[in-house]
């Protein structure tokens, strides 16, 4: 289906590191000159770890039950689907009864819902937010945009496959999926978690280099540490 | 009006005249002259106060010592006047010396020119 003019070749130029992240020299109050490498000094460089399951299966199952019944969603709307998530809190859908609630900080959230198309710029933020969530963590992609690009299939600035960049546990199809579909997606996700298959975070850690390569391929101005703790 | 009163009045008049002159003339030489006038006035007053009518000057060459106490005027003011005149002379001389040097320094004898020290 290459129905395009192949004469066009994209240019791949290196984007220089941003000013504030470049190593610099600073004079201390005592008059010494010290070197500051922001990426090393200000950010933790450790790679993500693969966290094993609990030693005992019963305990792990118990934990998984708890995880399934206490899904805390990061309140981060990336695209048009964000508007479909709001009704979930209303009396009509009332997602709370399933132990689902929204948290404003990634540190306390377990589920990242990518609610629609992801521009490259937003992808950067989504990656950061995802990496800052504690394990185990889950990603849910909403709508065709996250699945195959959807109507943005030819956009110069929108990714087409979310699972290239983040380990997706559950896709909910539709453009956009309605709240009912979303609820169904949550239920499915809970099932997956209860079955102990919600190990996206470990998968991410295992295939970290590959994910990073994918991410860096589209985010040209990679201006953050490799893993955002 | 007795002689004493007359000389007293003259003396004070001279003093006032001198002071008036000294305080109104800006020229330093005129001021000095005015002060001399005032000094003279003071001396007149001095003598006038010590004058006793009908007595003579306290010069013991002409008057027997024994009678001196009753015939001469009070000798103290006379002595004072002499001293005062001498001192007045000294001060006047000094002022003139100053006037000379002031003129040398500034080329002017106007007292209001020498106000660089103030406040």
């Amino acid at each position, binding site marked *: 289906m290459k129905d395009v003019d192949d004469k066009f070749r994209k240019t791949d130029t290196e984007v220089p590191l941003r000013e504030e992240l470049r190593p610099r020299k600073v004079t201390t109050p005592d008059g010494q000159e010290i070197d500051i490498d922001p990426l090393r000094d200000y950010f933790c460089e450790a790679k993500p770890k693969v966290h094993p399951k609990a030693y005992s299966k019963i305990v792990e199952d*118990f934990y998984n039950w708890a995880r399934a019944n206490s899904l805390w969603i990061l309140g981060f709307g990336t695209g048009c689907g964000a508007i479909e998530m709001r009704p979930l809190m209303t*009396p009509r859908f009332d997602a709370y009864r399933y132990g689902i609630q929204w948290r404003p*900080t990634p540190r306390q959230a377990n589920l990242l819902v990518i609610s629609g198309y992801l521009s490259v710029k937003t992808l950067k933020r989504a990656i950061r937010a995802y990496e800052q969530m504690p394990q185990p963590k889950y990603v849910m992609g909403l709508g065709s945009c996250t699945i195959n690009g959807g109507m943005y299939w030819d956009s110069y600035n929108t990714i087409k496959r979310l699972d290239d960049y983040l380990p997706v546990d559950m896709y909910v199809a539709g453009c956009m999926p309605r709240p009912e579909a979303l609820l169904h997606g949550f239920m499915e996700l809970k099932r997956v978690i209860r079955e102990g298959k919600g190990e996206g975070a470990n998968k991410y850690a295992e295939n970290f280099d590959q994910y990073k390569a994918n991410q860096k391929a589209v985010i040209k101005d990679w201006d953050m540490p490799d893993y955002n703790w | 009006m007795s002689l004493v009163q007359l000389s007293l009045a003259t003396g004070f008049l001279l003093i006032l005249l001198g002071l008036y002159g000294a305080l109104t003339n800006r020229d330093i030489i005129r001021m000095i002259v005015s002060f001399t006038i005032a000094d003279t006035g003071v001396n007149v007053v001095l003598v006038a106060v010590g004058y006793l009518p009908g007595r003579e000057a306290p010069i013991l060459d002409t008057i027997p010592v024994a009678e001196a106490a009753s015939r001469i005027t009070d000798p103290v003011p006379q002595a004072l006047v002499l001293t005062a005149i001498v001192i007045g002379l000294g001060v006047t001389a000094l002022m003139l010396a100053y006037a000379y040097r002031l003129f040398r320094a500034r080329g002017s004898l106007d007292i209001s020119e020498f106000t660089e020290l103030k406040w």
Partner: protein
Amino acid sequence: MTAFPNFEWVQIAYALLTLFIVINYGMVMTAVVRKIGARVGGRYGIPVWQNYVDLLKNIALRSKISHGVMYYLGPVFRLTGGVGLLMFVPTIYGSEWHQNFSYAGDLILALYFVFFGTLGMALGAGESGHPHSAIGVSRGLAQVTMAELPLALGVYALSLQYGTLDITKIVAAQQGSIFNWTLFTNPLATVAAMVAFVGTMMRSPFDVAMAPQEIPIGPPTEYHSSYLALMQTNRVLFPVAKTVIYMNLFFGGATSWAEFAIKVFCLYMISVVIGVVHPRFRVEQSIRFFLKWGLPLGVLAILTV
């Protein structure tokens, strides 16, 4: 062991029992309160055991980070504040079991120990380096300076009234009839103190320190997993412990666990009811509120004792 009069090891067991009861009570009660709120809104609401599930989930989280020693100790301070507060206050009047370690001090100890956890938490949040944490702390501290004032005045009026600072004695003086409660013998002090109560329960309209969605959630922005678990525990324990103080001081205390449960629930509901119908105050608004209402009430209370 002169410092611990009549100390027996079994007291520790009783204290732990009190703690256990109160924590579980708090877990269920807060969930029930939320459920009531949901029902009022026409929703089904969370299951009553949701708090346990959340707690378990947070403990079960696998990866954790630490921003430093003080960050690590923050929740420890917080929970110690909550548990300590409970330990320093007699829970059930007349019960030898549930006097805890209240002989260590009196009302003043309890009032000042309230700040122990707050301070530690603020320090921990501070070390996380998150500006929103610092903003939350700044707001919270600014608000608490005025919010605690009516309580201090009310308590002063109260201790003048009873001539003692000993909580047990104050409870004892309120026994006999419902009209012996401070609520009826000294309504002004009670109202003043309740203003402070509402102001320090971290519920709307006085929740600007947390301000969910605005500065994400204020001080605990960086806290997660087991830190958060400790804080959740405190979150159910501490309001109850604080309510116990109010109950003891103004509402005749409790002579049994049943009375305890009812009174704490009712008192807690006061702040909930006010919270659901009022939007959030900004800091300066709430400070002015306390200056305008809490302070005069407190002044009146101590002038009329």
